[in-house]
């Protein structure tokens, strides 16, 4: 499934994120990664069918549900975001997820500062989904290193147990001030910032979902920061233990699928952010994974992202 990895420090990459109102830096980053490509990086295969001042709507590419992601860059510090099953204009979409009543302030963060200073970003994408990470309080020199706030955003199709699930698209963002870390949380109840357009049966409207891992002792806690988990590397196998991150409808607790290419370490903050580990043997032989922090203040999660 390998994603294409795009980074702020690639040759020809779009400008770093900044927190100023109407800064279109996030829209520009997604446009470059998903639609146009830049430098030696081919685009992920999305389209951008609608635009307006400080707004854009991106559409998933081949093999996907073909849903839309609308971004509004007018706020300070973050873009407001919302998914739609279909759109006919930048301000005309049907079947939003979430609905405004469910969440009026779902956001993808840019920067904690409004002084225009740049923030590192990273996008992992294919035609069906993308994962966005940003160092919300980190300088360009700090790069992938751990800082106080490192939100993440995901939009796209899950790997679903039901290949006929035409609504298996997840939007996972933050709320209000954008520095929250919902992608890094395992929960046994409806998330405040993670929604899908319909339930597993394809009926009704947008639903808040929950997600968890298969790591022993994970409970409702931060992913990759599991107290009582084995030391890293695993003392028995020398390996990095990993679990899929699985998303569920809250009603009936049925699985909607797993986050493709994003794994939950079965340890307590293993390694360091930015570490790249290569599988040599076993079921993940040949795969390369990058450790990344998804953090908010003292709430620090660590995920493992499949990279080329």
């Amino acid at each position, binding site marked *: 499934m390998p994603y294409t990895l795009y980074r702020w420090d690639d040759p020809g990459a779009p400008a770093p994120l900044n927190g100023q109102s109407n800064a279109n830096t996030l829209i520009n980053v997604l446009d470059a990664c998903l639609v146009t490509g830049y430098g030696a990086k081919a685009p992920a295969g999305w389209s951008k069918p609608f635009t307006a001042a400080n707004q854009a709507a991106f559409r998933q590419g081949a093999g996907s549900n073909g849903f839309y992601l609308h971004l509004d860059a007018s706020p300070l510090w973050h873009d407001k975001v919302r998914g739609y099953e279909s759109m006919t204009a930048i301000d005309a979409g049907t079947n939003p997820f979430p609905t405004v009543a469910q969440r009026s302030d779902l956001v993808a963060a840019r920067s904690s500062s409004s002084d225009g200073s740049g923030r590192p970003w990273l996008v992992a994408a294919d035609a069906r989904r993308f994962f966005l990470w940003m160092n919300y309080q980190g300088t360009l020199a700090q790069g992938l290193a751990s800082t106080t706030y490192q939100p993440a955003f995901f939009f796209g199709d899950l790997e679903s*147990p039901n290949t006929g699930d035409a609504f298996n698209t997840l939007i996972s963002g933050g709320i209000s001030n954008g520095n929250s870390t919902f992608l890094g949380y395992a929960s046994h109840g409806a998330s405040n910032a993670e929604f899908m357009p319909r339930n597993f049966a394809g009926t009704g409207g947008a639903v808040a979902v929950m997600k968890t891992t298969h790591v022993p002792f994970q409970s409702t806690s931060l992913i990759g920061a599991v107290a009582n988990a084995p030391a890293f590397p695993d003392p028995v196998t020398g390996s990095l233990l990993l679990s899929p991150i699985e998303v569920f409808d809250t009603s009936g607790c049925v699985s909607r699928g797993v986050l493709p290419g994003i794994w939950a370490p079965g340890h307590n903050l293993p390694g360091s952010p930015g570490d790249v580990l290569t599988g*040599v043997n076993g079921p993940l032989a040949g795969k390369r994974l990058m450790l990344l922090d998804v953090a908010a203040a003292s709430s620090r999660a660590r995920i493992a992202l499949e990279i080329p």
Partner: protein
Amino acid sequence: MADLGAVGRVVTGVVALAGGYVAGTVRDAQGAPARRRLGLYHRGRLSYSNSAYSDATSGAYQIACHVTDDQAEHFVVCLDDGAEPVQNDLILGRVTGV
């Protein structure tokens, strides 16, 4: 009987991103395969990585390197058999996991 196709779903549990293995065969002084305890150490750090026993019938052993160590050099220590007269332990140096 009707073909129901694929039924059920395999839920992937916890899996391991594993590094390389160091493998070999242990033989005793007479050249016969032997069961011995072996330790794997990181050469640069002089630190313990893992251990294993060789198989009594084939003498084969396999020890997992740490996934963090990539292609780092290791050395293997093969302990002598405690039931026999004391011998120096054996060292196989500068090996990397594959």
